[in-house]
């Protein structure tokens, strides 16, 4: 689960969280088997694509929060390899 969640855990955390997780999952199983329909009361709300802000006005502020940047871009290690 930790791998699927992209969270590295220590051995102690695996033991502690594992024990509690079973207890919690057992509790929430109360709703298992719930039948009926899901009401689709939700609706999509689209925002008109108008009055855009000037290109780049937010860039500096947003990039300031990043640990690494490359010019006007966020920088990270390689995500896709070009094999």
């Amino acid at each position, binding site marked *: 689960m930790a791998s699927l969640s992209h969270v590295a855990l220590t051995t102690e955390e695996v033991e502690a969280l594992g024990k509690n997780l079973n207890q919690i999952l057992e509790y929430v199983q109360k709703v298992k088997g719930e039948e009926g329909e899901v009401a689709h009361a939700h609706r999509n709300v689209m925002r008109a694509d108008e009055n855009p802000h000037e290109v780049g006005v*937010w860039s500096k502020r947003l990039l300031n929060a990043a640990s690494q940047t490359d010019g006007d871009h*966020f920088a990270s290690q390689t995500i896709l390899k070009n094999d």
Partner: protein
Amino acid sequence: MIDTNSLTIKEAQEGLGAGLYSTQDLWATYSAEAKEKNSDVFAYLELFERENSPKEGALKGMPLALKDNILFEGHRASASSKILEGYVAPYSATAVTKCLDAGAVFLGRTNMDEFAMGSSTENSAFGATKNPHDLARIPGGSSGGSAAAVAMGGAIAALGSDTGGSIRQPASHCGLIGLKPTYGAVSRYGLIAMGSSLDQIGPIAKNVEDTELLFNIIKGVDPFDSTSREQEKFAPKKNLTIGVPYSFFENAADEDVVALFKEKMKALEDAGHTIKSIELPVLSDALAAYYIIMPAEASTNLARFDGIRYGLSKEGKDVREAYENTRKEGFGSEVKRRILIGTYVLSAGYHDEFYGAATRYRASLTNELTKVFADIDIVATPTVPSPAYTFGEKQDPLSVYLEDIFTVPANLSGIPALSVPMGTVTRTQSQLPVGIQFMAGHDNEAVLFSAGFAVENSF
């Protein structure tokens, strides 16, 4: 001249109007009180320096506290997590902008459970806030810092956020009023997301009048939050019909809390309101459904903390390992636990069994509550099963989750709910406040305030 423990917004406005003090005096007094009390209570993670003169408006010069998951441009925001180390908000939340435009000034950012995950502030990465009524006890959470800041006289009122009770429960533990508005009533633009179908920003204040004033200022449609919407208008009511689902809470709450609740119901009945015993068996599974839906949404929302765009960043041999190491170092245990639960209930093979079932339950809960509010104005319960507990008293997470048992139905169904102090109970020689919770139909905050005023008048 300024008693920060009891001063309300209305009284402060009158004091300013009469020339008894200036907005600068208000700031200086509250700021000094907050600094002094904070060394014991630790309500604030950071106290701000005074900035520009306040604008003209309904909140002119009112010193407010701000939960650390609500962005205020140019100020740090951490959601009490190490993973947002060094993060400075590049813009302000709409609720913050609205308060500033109305003349409010923010004293500082308040402590909370990390990413709003908890009911005690014990999950803050920076240490727990203490309850001003008894420093050995929790202030509630996750907006525990906001509630404690007001209760210790370190702010005239505060903004918090409520995903499953995070405004109402600390308000109850600290003897204050707390409002969880109708879903969509207040913009969440600039709120660090936890459970996006549940989160709402709301006020914590010393009386119902201030709570209503703050709500009216922060509510409204915001083009930057497409879940915000115009509310249907309801009028306040003089004679309320209040439904009480005794079988839902009688065995789950402490005896003296139930006794106090019944006393308060009797006082409301004597004041001319109608009290009806109702059955709402659907409520019994709300907590289970909440602890499926909330972690599912939280695990999704927290995927954005990748060490690349903001906050803490740890190295790894590749991008995946860097991502995992950042989250290992940056997130605390409770956050990791909820990410794991969320990932589990959304994973292939378990999705329908857990998340699907919880979603179906949520629909039937909402339907049942809608039917109930066709006949009555309010559903009333205690806000919490027990008064504030001592630090370390609750070790296993499930016992802490049970703190939310009465508050989560309002979040799951999107209805508004208000916690109002109903008196105190005694624990180890401390008089500890407990709240009464009123829930109403969608958009009907007006009737909640009517009920809140009725309780205030009953003392």
